[in-house]
């Protein structure tokens, strides 16, 4: 074997080794589909989860970047915490990512935040004079602020509200009936007594007319 043949074989081996290494490093990071939609009461918190997995043939070290939200006027952005923040998945392995949202108590109701959370495959690549490309998965995280629930101890069930409303209606009806009855009696007394001045004058006029008729009859 001469030197030229040896160099050729060595270069071919390096090329094959490089190709094999490239194939062996193939990473395929996956996740379950669907946005995470939070409806969080003011001062409250909520936790949702989803699954990430390694669908390739090599280990995948990953890091998690929580979603970034642009500020909403007069509101404090909710706090988002993610568990785990990093880890390593083996081929075929999956893990659950927990996302928790805490809503400030002083925020307004009906505010929406929308951002993308990232699970990125770790890389130690460097590329002076160019860009390093890092791949990963994005999960849309949408957060709505809701009204806080009624305070405990003062909560009234809808059934109790119906009973209270019924009692109030009954009391009003009874009072109205009593009032109407009371108003009816003086009116009746007025009609039967004939004590007003107009009636007296009319009676006097009728008596006078009766007298004149009697006089004519004589």
């Amino acid at each position, binding site marked *: 074997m001469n030197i030229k043949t040896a160099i050729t074989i060595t270069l071919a081996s390096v090329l094959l080794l490089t190709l094999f290494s490239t194939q062996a490093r193939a990473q395929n990071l996956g996740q379950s589909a669907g946005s995470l939609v939070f409806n969080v009461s003011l001062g409250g918190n909520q936790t949702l989860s989803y699954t990430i997995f390694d669908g390739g043939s090599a280990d995948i070290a990953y890091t998690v970047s929580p979603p970034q939200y642009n500020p909403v006027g007069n509101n404090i952005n909710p706090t988002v915490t993610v568990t785990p923040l990093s880890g390593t998945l083996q081929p075929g392995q999956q893990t659950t990512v927990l996302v928790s949202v805490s809503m400030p108590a002083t925020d307004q109701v009906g505010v929406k935040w929308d951002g993308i959370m990232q699970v990125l495959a770790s890389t130690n690549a460097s590329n002076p004079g160019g*860009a390093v490309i890092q791949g990963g998965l994005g999960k849309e995280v949408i957060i709505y602020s809701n009204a806080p629930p009624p305070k405990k101890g003062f909560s009234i069930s809808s059934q109790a509200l119906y009973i209270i409303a019924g009692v109030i209606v009954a009391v009003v009806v009874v009072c109205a009936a009593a009032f109407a009855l009371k108003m009816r009696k003086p009116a009746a007394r007025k009609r039967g007594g004939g004590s007003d001045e107009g009636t007296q004058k009319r009676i006097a006029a009728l008596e006078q007319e009766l007298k004149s008729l009697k006089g004519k009859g004589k």
Partner: protein
Amino acid sequence: MYADRSRILGVAIAAGIASGVFLALLALQLGVQVAYATNQIAPNVILSLTVPAGCEISLNTQSISFGTITASQNSLTTSQNVLDTNGGNGGAVIAVSGSNWVSGGNNFGVSNTVYSSSSSTSYASGTALTLIPANTAIVVGSSSSTNVWFGLGIPAGQVASTYSQNIIITNVC
């Protein structure tokens, strides 16, 4: 007396299987030594398996280079590509973000990098890269691949140096 015996079953889901609920009937084959009661229900087990929809990501490269570009010039078109492969059973939308270009104490903004779904997009028509992940509206379907093309412009007066940047490509689903 017959001893109770249990068996743990495992299921492997092949890549690219469509999402949905799958059912299977597992018929147990019993040995001759097993005694039946006359009213015994046939020892069959219905297996239920739910395969959720999901997306995956695999990129063909970990770096791109724009060569040498002088100050106030640009790459003319979105000339550098990254092939994004989604091996999952559900589609995804590509989101991109990046960092500022840095070289020691010198730097220039992330937005000087632009992207497009086409290689023929002029630099001026490309969409500027941002620090926060942005939805590109570029769809990569299930079990398919899509290119994202990048271009670069150098601000006028930028100090000559060898700059580098990080670009993040994610499949959102």
